[in-house]
């Protein structure tokens, strides 16, 4: 088979595995597994961006693929691993999550995302147009993960996973945003991540734990 026909199929496959990783993240309780999965998600993203860059012949996308590799596959997971180790949180696991129900809700979200993405997919001219629904689903699933988790680090991983979904959405709908914007987003992400890292230490200093259930004093009585 001619390679140019294979790329769209391969991209679909990568998109599906992105979704699969999102579901795996939803079902994992251990923090360290989550970080590994996040790194995997980044790598899939990197490969798919490379493929899109190759097939569309866009130099810009090569840069953002490199950015993805550096930031999301290498730097962030590494820092997260180090952080968890320094905070002694690598064996933390969540206890309060009812996973089958979460998965069921996730399934509903996937259907919803596909429904939302239909009109966009029909309009798009990119070779990746079918995967916009999956990108949206990845965003929603990360959102769900942030809602259901109670640990600071897992919430952050959810946040980063959401950003991955957004990046994938940008790649599949429009071959990526303009480079300036892409850089700005990456910068914001990095800065935000560092602020969160500072937060981890502040929270642990104050509460002796990274469990966010302590952070529930500010409520309307």
């Amino acid at each position, binding site marked *: 088979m001619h390679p140019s026909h294979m790329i769209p199929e391969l991209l679909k496959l990568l998109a599906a595995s992105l979704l699969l990783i999102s579901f795996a993240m939803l079902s994992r309780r251990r923090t360290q597994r989550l970080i590994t999965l996040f790194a995997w998600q980044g790598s899939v993203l990197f490969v798919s961006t490379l493929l899109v860059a190759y097939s569309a012949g866009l130099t810009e996308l090569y840069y953002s693929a490199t950015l993805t590799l550096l930031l999301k596959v290498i730097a962030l997971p590494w820092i997260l691993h180090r952080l968890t180790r320094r905070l002694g949180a690598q064996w933390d696991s969540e206890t309060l999550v009812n996973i089958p129900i979460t998965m069921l809700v996730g399934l509903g979200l996937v259907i919803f995302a596909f429904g*939302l993405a239909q*009109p*966009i997919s029909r*309009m*798009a*001219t990119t070779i990746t147009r079918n995967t916009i629904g999956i990108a*949206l689903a990845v*965003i929603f699933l990360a*959102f769900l993960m*942030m809602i259901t988790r109670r640990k*600071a680090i897992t*919430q952050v991983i959810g*946040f980063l996973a*959401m*950003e991955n979904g*957004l990046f994938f*959405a*940008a790649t599949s*709908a*429009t*071959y990526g*945003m*303009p480079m*300036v*914007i892409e850089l*700005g*987003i990456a*910068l*914001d992400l990095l*800065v*935000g991540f560092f*602020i*969160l890292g*500072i*937060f981890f230490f*502040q*929270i642990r*200093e*104050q*509460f002796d734990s990274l469990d*966010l259930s*302590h*952070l*529930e*004093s*500010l409520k*309307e*009585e």
Partner: protein
Amino acid sequence: MDLLIVLGLPLLGALLLALFGARTYAAELNAGMSFATLVAVAFLVLRVLRHGSLLALHEQFFVDSFNVFLVALTAFVGFTTALFSRPYMRIEEQRGRLSQQRLRLYHSMYQLFMAAMFLALLTNNMGLLWVAMEAATLSTVLLVSLYRTRASLEAAWKYFILCGVGIAQALFGTILLYFAAEHVLGRQGMTALLWTHLNAVKGQLEPRVLGLAFVFLLVGYGTKVGLAPLHNWLPDAHAEGPTPVSAVLSGLLLNVALYAVIRCKVLVEGSIGSYLPGRMLMTFGLLSAVLGAFFLWRQRDIKRLFGYSSIEHMGIITFAFGIGGPIANFAALLHMTVHSLTKSSIFFTAGHASQTAHTQQMDGIRGLVGISPTIGWGLMLGSLAILGMPPFGVFASEFLILTTAMREHPWTTPFLLIALGVAFAAIFRKVQPMVFGESDAPPLPHSPALVPVFIHLAIVLMLGVYMPFALADWYRAAARLIGG
């Protein structure tokens, strides 16, 4: 060139304060940089008044009648807040709540925050707008947790996560916008995200995609506006951060976030050709106004109380933009201005009031007039102004909004009246014993900088009694631009 100076000065300030922020003169440096920015903005405003709207730097930045008045407002409140924060933060430092290092962080982040807001207001690029909004959030997160208490950490975490998620939705909306624009404008020349270009071709943008994009943009930026069901972060962040930060959050950040929503609304309405975006704004606005008003009743913390009041007022402004049309837009712009001025002055006095009483709990604050008449009367007048008492400007804008709503959407009037009535009763009942009553607390060690309070209130009063022609023209031009 003026534009670059406006953007560059706060950045320079952030850099300088990051270096020298721990010195004793840091607060003066902060105020000085803010003043310099204000002067630069004044020149910019003069130029726009004389030559009309302008584009700069490959059209990446632009000033039109809508954003120029927000730029002026931002620079002004930024400067007065810097003035206020000088004695306020000194007292906090003396009381051992903050160290020199924290003050350095505070001053530097303050300037960075101003820079991010100017960038958000001045950029013509919807993607850059997103980046600037996110930068504004990031720079304030550490300010909210400045005291490093449990409550402030919780508030900052909530602020970060909620706004982070919200802003992620906005990014998706922006991606969709780019997607739709790319079909019309193409990828070349980076014009596909420029608002001026988008505005020119808004009729050709695919309505279904833009409709979807608007939902995401509204949810995303709406979280930062503090629109009701997404408002959870707002009262916490206002209550737990230092008071100057509460003042700029309420007075400026909410405005800028709403500005982003309105820019999007203009595009989407032009593309869809229906009132749907307006209706969505009205619904969210009304909900926030009513919910915010009812939550006022249950507050014990003075800064939380006025945080909820901000939700209520942002709701009213959003509602007015939702109605659309020249009069409602005019009223909304006016209300934006007066709310921002009044609310920041209230936070100034509330900050000093809680410093005097050593607590933010309203039960503990009593007899402010006796201790310091300026603080007491400042709080009283500010509260009366925010409650919409004539002759303050808030009355004028609320009156305009109410009459327009009665004429165009009569069913909304009872809700608006309930919100205003409930807010009035709740705030007045709580402020009255704080201002009058008995107390034996000693006065503050540093004389509070209450000049900004009375300047703000004087402007609000003036806007209620007499509006300068130039300003009215300005508002009218902006209202026309927003249309709807």
